């Protein structure tokens, strides 16, 4: 496979598509699929066959606004329909060439206007099981360009220039990481893609793996060329069976097209990828734990240094990036580092995909330029808090993150800004809470999560999270004292400062951030035996009321 052959494939796909008058793109992502998108697609195909119109019905990945699903987009008109069901098929087909079906149309202009799509550029436009669909949208062009026109060093330089930082949560500069692995000695190196999206309330990586799997494979192959690795591992959660199936198909297709394997594009570069299944351990998002898991062991982290870039999988230099990071690579190589660096804020470049969920009107996946205000994401893109309730907090960064209150909604989203207010960027979960959420209970929820996900190796995390949970439970059920609260705060500091890995070090964040912004709710529970949100089941007698 070379660039000319790639262009031939792309051209023939475009020609094939041009033979159709209309394209009906049906979102088949989990949220839409759970509401009958498959039946809808079958109905559209059946109706299309008898309509006399030349209609292409395409299965696509996530289009974004999940709360309006199942979704259908009609091209070339770019008409977006929401809440579509199988019995709407005839109406849609007969409207083609006439006025669109008004009752099904979604007004999501505001929702989309603020978004910039880099990682999700193909979402809703390609069939994830068809490699040629991906190729028709410039797929694998970056890989072949890198192989034939750039040096490995040049690729690293371009990634460095882009300012891309790791999208898994930590925000480590990607170019720097690549450069370190490239410089590490030894003939055998590995590329690992972290697809163990364990952060509850986040599904960006799932959507990319399911909706645009080749984008990740291409990113990994480019990384392999840049750092001198010929083998990659894709570590995917077993809870994502569709992602595993799509990636398996994609790898097979890529091999068939000669885009993985030996002597790619007639060069001496070899690269292939193997899938490894996670098995339900949040801690395996931590690099050294992930490596242990790929090696078939318990996913317990190890003290660093040595860093995986020097001594990783089977002791070899290993580059680990997460799904979204790899998904950014091909467009950066294609469009240049400067193009990417022009988007975003001073120290956080590019875009970020967020999974917007919770008490918000438009739930779903959004991709925004870094630096955008939280308020714009929540009020404009997300459509605000529904059902007459008021906004209380937005939680970012999952169990390692924090809750950000209403006063801070004008904060621009960047790695540093979120850190400053006691949260983190994390992998991109963004959960909106309203006045029916109790912040003490939320803190307890996250601590319970960290307690059950703690690997148990180091004492502060293993026993510390269990004690934090115990103290928070006391406070939630009304039996806590102010002494318990100060003990809790003290414990938070020790767990944060002394734990072995990131899970333990960040486990206190949800407690610390809620204590910082919603301390009154803790005091309410302890002193007034009252949960204003009405969530906690306070057992203490009512006469304690002040």
């Amino acid at each position, binding site marked *: 496979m070379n660039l000319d052959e790639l262009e031939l494939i792309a051209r023939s796909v475009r020609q094939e598509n041009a033979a159709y008058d209309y394209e009906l793109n049906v979102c088949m992502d989990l949220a839409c699929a759970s509401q009958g998108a498959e039946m809808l697609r079958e109905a559209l195909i059946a109706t299309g066959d008898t309509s006399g119109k030349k209609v292409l019905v395409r299965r696509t990945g996530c289009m974004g606004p999940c709360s309006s699903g199942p979704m259908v987009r009609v091209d070339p008109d770019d008409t977006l329909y929401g809440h579509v069901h199988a019995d709407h098929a005839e109406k849609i087909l007969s409207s083609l060439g006439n006025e669109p079906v008004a009752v099904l149309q979604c007004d999501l202009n505001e929702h989309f206007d603020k978004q910039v799509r880099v990682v999700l550029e193909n979402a809703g436009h390609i069939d994830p099981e068809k490699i040629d669909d991906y190729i028709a949208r410039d797929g694998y062009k970056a890989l072949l360009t890198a192989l034939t026109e750039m040096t490995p060093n040049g690729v690293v330089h371009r990634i460095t220039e882009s300012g891309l930082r790791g999208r898994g949560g930590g925000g480590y500069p990607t170019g720097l990481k690549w450069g370190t692995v490239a410089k590490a000695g030894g003939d055998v190196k590995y590329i690992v893609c972290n697809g163990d999206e364990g952060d509850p309330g986040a599904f960006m990586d799932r959507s990319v793996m399911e909706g645009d799997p080749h984008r990740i494979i291409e990113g990994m192959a480019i990384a392999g060329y840049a750092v001198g690795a010929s083998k990659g591992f894709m570590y995917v959660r077993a809870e994502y069976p569709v992602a595993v199936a799509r990636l398996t198909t994609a790898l097979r297709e890529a091999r068939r097209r000669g885009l993985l394997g030996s002597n790619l594009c007639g060069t001496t570069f070899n690269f292939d990828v193997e899938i490894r299944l996670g098995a339900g*351990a949040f801690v395996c998002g931590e690099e050294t734990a992930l490596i242990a898991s790929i090696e078939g062991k*318990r996913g317990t982290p*190890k*003290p660093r240094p040595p860093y995986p870039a020097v001594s990783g999988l089977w002791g070899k230099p290993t580059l680990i990036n997460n799904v979204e990071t790899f998904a950014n690579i091909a467009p950066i190589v294609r469009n240049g580092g400067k193009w990417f660096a022009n988007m975003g804020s001073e120290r956080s470049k590019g875009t970020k995909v967020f999974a917007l969920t919770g008490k918000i009107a438009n739930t779903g996946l959004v991709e925004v330029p870094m630096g955008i205000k939280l308020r714009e994401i929540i009020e404009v893109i997300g459509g605000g808090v529904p059902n007459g309730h008021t906004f209380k907090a937005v939680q970012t960064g999952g169990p390692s993150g924090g809750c950000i209150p209403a006063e801070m909604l004008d904060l621009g989203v960047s790695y540093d800004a979120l850190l400053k207010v006691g949260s983190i960027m994390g992998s991109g979960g963004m959960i909106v809470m309203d006045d029916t959420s109790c912040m003490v209970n939320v803190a307890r929820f996250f601590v319970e999560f960290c*307690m*059950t*996900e*703690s*690997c*148990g*190796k*180091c*004492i*502060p995390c*293993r*026993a*510390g*999270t*269990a*004690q934090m949970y*115990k*103290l928070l439970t006391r406070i939630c059920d009304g039996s806590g004292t102010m002494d318990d609260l100060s*003990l809790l705060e*003290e*414990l938070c500091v*020790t767990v944060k*400062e*002394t*734990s*072995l890995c990131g899970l333990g070090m960040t486990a206190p964040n949800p407690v610390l951030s809620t204590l910082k912004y919603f301390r009154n709710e803790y005091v309410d529970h302890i002193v007034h035996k009252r949960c204003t949100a009405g969530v906690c089941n306070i057992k203490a007698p009512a006469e304690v009321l002040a």
Partner: protein
Amino acid sequence: MSENVEVKTLVIDGQEASARRGQTILEVARENNINIPTLCHLEGLSDVGACRLCLVEIAGSNKLLPACVATVSEGMEVSTNTERLAKHRRTILELLFAERNHICSVCVANGHCELQSLGQSQGLTHVRLPYRNPELTVDASHERFTLDHNRCILCTRCVRVCAEIEGAHVWDVMGRGINSMVITDLNDDWGNSSCTRCGKCVQVCPTGALFDKSQIGSEHPKHPDFLPYLNLMREAQ
């Protein structure tokens, strides 16, 4: 350039010290008679950096480093005994005492338990955290030894000595987090496991979790100091 020098000089608790490249902070500190508390570390076994008692402060960094695995670097200024560290160490010990059922007065290891003596040396006077009081079992199925989960602190010395020195790997840890447990084979009774009965695990256990049935009541039942000797003899062969 300085990274390639074979000998490093550093300062530990205000005391100048020299070290070979690759030595851990703990090794250098002990060579200089500076005591850093440890629990999961045992000379002769690989280090896991799990108990966090040996954390030390490094000037210019807010991050605490485990002395047992962190290696020295040129010009490093290490503090091993600050108020911040002392507080963390007491809290960690408190967490251990509250995690399972450590009742020194009725423990076979009373008087020669590393957890107990650390509690004393670190000035832990009382435990403020709520005791978890988990219901745990005692496995007395082995003809010579007993395993009492109530006293286990999951330091994994037994796991490491069995795998690394004896080469049998009969011990490991099952479950995770607060529910972790040391096991033999498929969580079988110790007496019915593939145990070689060498007793090394009992010798290295810092508490009364593993003990020799015949030694109950004796003054000093454990001798973990055989490990460096064993390793030395192996290297010599």
